[in-house]
């Protein structure tokens, strides 16, 4: 009986000690969570500017694209999404301000309102062409310390801003607002001189690959590869001496046709 009593007392002491250690550790962890949350909130402030910038770029692209009805519709979709995201971000901000005045987490009503708004925003994201998804927001309520809820809110804010910016950037691509794609290649144009010195130009070229690209050699169409390079091939004249051919590149950019011409000299050798 005596031993049993001692064992029970020991167990109680150990449990109490562990519980105390745990509480202390939890307090420390919560204290460590606060500065990290603050850093993420600062990063989110910058991300909000990035989202606004993405929308502005889309608007500029639509204007450059002569405000075509389809492009305007895409811009309207992006603006709606931005407004929804802003509304959600404002709610998060209001809850953050309220939480900073207290030590306990969100109330059930506030959490429910947040979840409803997030669901509406996620639905809007899914309806976009192409659809995108939003991670399930993990804001816990009830007996959660305010510091932990603030961390959850910063995480949700990060998710919203990331998904918004990505969605607007994807929409930008559908209106052709993005600049022409390109690739960089190193080329050498050689001119073999008679005698002892070989001369060539070594150049880095930025080859543009617009969506509509047509090429011609002396007025005849030239096959163009997916890399934006046209392969010119013709039989040289039989008359020796200097000769030339005319290359023509035609593109349609922002609804306008533009033609670029190059005259290329070459030499027909003697037999």
């Amino acid at each position, binding site marked *: 009986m005596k031993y049993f009593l001692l064992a029970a007392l020991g167990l109680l002491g150990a449990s109490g000690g562990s519980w105390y250690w745990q509480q202390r550790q939890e307090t420390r962890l919560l204290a460590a969570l606060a500065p990290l949350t603050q850093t993420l909130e600062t*990063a989110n402030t910058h991300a909000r500017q990035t989202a606004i910038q993405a929308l502005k770029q889309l608007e500029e692209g639509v204007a450059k694209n002569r405000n075509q009805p389809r492009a305007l519709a895409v811009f309207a979709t992006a603006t709606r999404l931005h407004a929804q995201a802003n509304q959600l971000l404002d709610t998060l901000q209001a809850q953050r301000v309220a939480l900073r005045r207290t030590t306990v987490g969100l109330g059930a009503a506030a959490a429910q309102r947040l979840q409803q708004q997030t669901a509406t925003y996620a639905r809007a994201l899914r309806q976009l062409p192409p659809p995108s998804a939003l991670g399930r927001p993990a804001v816990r309520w009830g007996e959660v310390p305010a510091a932990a809820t603030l961390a959850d809110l910063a995480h949700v804010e990060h998710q919203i801003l990331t998904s918004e910016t990505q969605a607007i950037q994807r929409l930008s691509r559908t209106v052709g607002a993005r600049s022409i794609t390109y690739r960089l290649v190193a080329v050498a144009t050689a001119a073999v001189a008679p005698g002892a010195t070989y001369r060539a130009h070594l150049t880095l070229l930025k080859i543009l690959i617009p969506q509509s690209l047509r090429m011609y050699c002396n007025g005849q169409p*030239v096959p163009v590869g997916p890399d934006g390079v046209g392969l010119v091939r013709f039989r040289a004249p039989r008359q020796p001496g200097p000769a030339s051919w005319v290359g023509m590149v035609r593109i349609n950019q922002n609804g306008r046709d533009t033609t670029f011409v190059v005259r290329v000299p*070459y030499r027909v050798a003697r037999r």
Partner: protein
Amino acid sequence: MTTSRSFLLTLLASTLGAGYAYQRGQARQAILLARFATLAADLMANNQRAAQATANTVRSISRITYLNYQQAADRTVLRQSEQVLARTQSLTDTLRALRSRLGAPSSQAPGLPSQPVGFFASLKNREAANQQLAAHVARYGNFIRRFDSYNELGSPLSTALFEQAYQQNLPPAVVAAAAAGLEAQVRQASAAALQNQAEKVGSKCFFCWRYVARAVPASTTVAPGAFYQARLFLAETPAADYGALTMTANGRALAVQREAGGLVALAVPPRQPGQPDTVRATWRGVIRAHAYPADTTWQLVVPYLIVQHPTP
């Protein structure tokens, strides 16, 4: 007897209660540690984007400097910006090495061990490691403030969380998140500094680049009636995406002109006895660009013919 039984029952209930409270505490702590991992993942995703953005800023400064005909003032701004990028890279590499030492991947931090094993305990000289990191951060802070012409950098970079983790022996998930948080602060400071630098160069050129049709023939001389071949494309000139380029031909540096590129001039070796009339030869060209933070290199091997009786 009844009293002692009641006492025993109370004791047993208290023990069970304490055990239950402990279990709940453990679960709460696990959720709390998961939050550190989530925050770290979010911060690292931001850091990744910020790293890309700062590299783009320096590339843009380099490009404008090049298009602006390499003016001395612009070159100074570019050199300083490259220093900012290099020192930011050095500090963030240290922080990422710290994270990977803790078992966290460089860009995300899921699945860190949640048991309260102190990170600093795993280091041989934890005091020295802590002080070394603090000194590195302080040096970086003093350096970056020199570029803070608009006082945008806000609060100084803080290693307080690391010190707290060291003193209180906090779990690795906390230290990994602290490293991600500190990297975020460093990235924010370097972004503000580089933005100030970018404003100093501005875009002063009126006609910076243009689109042209270009053709690269397989050979500029062709036999009568033979097939002439060339590649035709639309190009932007000058290709200034990376600013100034360095070029070499067979290992020798070339003088690079803005639009024409580098002029290669190779002395062809004299004809050897018994050598055929036509000899195939090659030269190797290398173009190197500053792509920030790592350089980009293009290499090409150009074939040519050495003929005994060249055509006029």
